[in-house]
């Protein structure tokens, strides 16, 4: 296990800023990361940039060099596309690059512009993360795919819409004071249960929103951190990634997420820890039920036990294992290509003490991010630790 210090992070506010291009969103996040790290564009050896639906939303492909240009960098630059896990995977590529010794400073992150699309266009765009032949042609939308999983989960393990509602309420509460979050307002159980149905069992408040935003992080080698006196407080100490069959119909289980289980096992092994060592986590709650799948796959709960964790208060800000203190995708927002590195940015701040919710977890030393693509056909897990 080689630690990869996070020298700096940056994240735009997530939300509706339809007129802004993804290149501009990424440039803002990268600018903040440079300032946070005390590094400059000329220090960067390589760029990994996550973006999912640029071709659909902006008619823009080949966005690796475009993102590097926007960040002031002339260096090898690659776009990473793994649906909603794009920038989480970009972070992992950066980690691997540093660990291999081929780079000392890597700019990672991502951006997405979504709200310039209509709801129907955005729905169709997101659905391309599913199987184009066997799911999309049958009318499967993205909320629909997760609804198929949620209903199968209810059938196998039990659980109710009320259980899911408590996850939405919790994540909205966590975002109340987070100025980067899309929704800074609390909701109650009636709001969730009486909202219009998107796909049964999900109502509007079970779903993360369409968002625009960018995120960035500067990963460095320990040697550079020391030589340059960067003094980073947090490092990535474990990373894992896995895949699964693209279509739900071809999975071993539709009520669990085996790719996340495998990614977590790799990340835990890499970090030399187990789930009991994790103090806080940012997980991929694109839908309320997705948080359940995540905390079970990560080993925090047995299958069937995670559904009521928020309702029992175990994953709330004052619970035993706070989940999604940033507000999660649900309330912070979900600009797809920016989400994974956005989790890294928020968790880094939470651990080093400069996040608005840091005081609630002042003793936290070990954190984890779980970033999923599609219906978890892709998953990347990164483990972060306060550097001693």
């Amino acid at each position: 296990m080689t630690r990869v210090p996070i020298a700096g992070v940056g994240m735009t506010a997530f939300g509706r800023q339809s007129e802004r291009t993804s290149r501009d969103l990424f440039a803002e996040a990268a600018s903040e990361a440079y300032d946070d790290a005390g590094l400059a564009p000329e220090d960067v050896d390589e760029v990994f940039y996550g973006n999912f639906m640029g071709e659909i939303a902006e008619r823009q492909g080949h966005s690796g060099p475009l993102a590097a240009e926007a960040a002031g960098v002339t260096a090898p630059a690659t776009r990473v596309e793994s649906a909603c896990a794009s920038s989480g995977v970009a972070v992992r590529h950066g980690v691997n690059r540093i660990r291999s010794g081929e780079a000392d400073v890597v700019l990672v992150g991502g951006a997405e512009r979504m709200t310039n699309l209509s709801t129907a266009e955005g729905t169709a765009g997101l659905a391309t993360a599913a199987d184009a032949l066997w799911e999309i042609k049958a009318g499967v939308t993205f909320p629909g795919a997760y609804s198929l999983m949620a209903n199968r989960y209810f059938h196998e393990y039990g659980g109710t819409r009320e259980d899911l509602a408590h996850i939405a309420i919790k994540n909205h509460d966590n975002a109340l004071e987070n100025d980067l979050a899309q929704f800074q307002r609390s909701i109650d159980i009636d709001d969730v249960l009486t909202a219009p149905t998107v796909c049964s069992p999900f109502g509007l408040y079970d779903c993360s929103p369409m968002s625009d935003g960018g995120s960035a992080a500067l990963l460095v080698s320990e040697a550079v951190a020391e030589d340059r006196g960067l003094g980073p407080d947090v490092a990535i100490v474990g990373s894992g990634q896995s895949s699964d069959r693209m279509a739900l119909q071809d999975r071993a289980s539709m009520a669990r997420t085996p790719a996340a289980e495998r990614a977590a096992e790799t990340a835990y092994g890499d970090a030399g820890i187990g789930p009991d060592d994790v103090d806080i986590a940012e997980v991929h709650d694109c839908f309320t039920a997705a948080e359940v799948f995540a905390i079970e796959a990560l080993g925090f709960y047995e299958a069937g036990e995670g559904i009521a964790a928020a309702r029992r208060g175990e994953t709330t800000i004052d619970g035993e294992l706070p989940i999604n203190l940033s507000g999660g995708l649900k309330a912070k927002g979900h600009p797809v290509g920016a989400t994974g590195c956005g989790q890294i940015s928020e968790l880094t701040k939470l651990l080093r003490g400069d996040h608005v919710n840091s005081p609630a977890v002042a003793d936290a030393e070990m954190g984890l991010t779980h970033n999923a693509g599609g219906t978890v056909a892709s998953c990347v897990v990164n483990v972060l630790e306060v550097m001693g």
Partner: protein
Amino acid sequence: MSDDVPDAGYDDFLDSLADGEPFYLEGPEGDGWLPPRRIDPETGLREFTREPLPETGEVLTMTVTNVAGPSFAADAPYLVAVAQFGPVRITGQLRGMDHEDVEIGQEVTLGVGTSEAGERLVVFEPA
């Protein structure tokens, strides 16, 4: 990309379904898949036999979609299900029943339907 150009494998399957002779691809170890497949993702083996699909299947999960993409906007609300037919699971739209009456375990048959936009798709009907 033109919608007039068929997708080999997928459209072959729909054609077989329309002809009343739906099939699946069986790997050497008995696992079943829908086309196109050249390599079994479970075993890595490359030998498939074409086997007839059972006539009835069982709904494993479903959802009623109210907010659709442009291709299915005129169909909403519609019910999407995943159903088990022998060793194969298939995703399609369940028609011919009130949505609130559909439960996991519902027995269904398989056929080809058309969306309001005129596209072919897999449909289930109560057995």
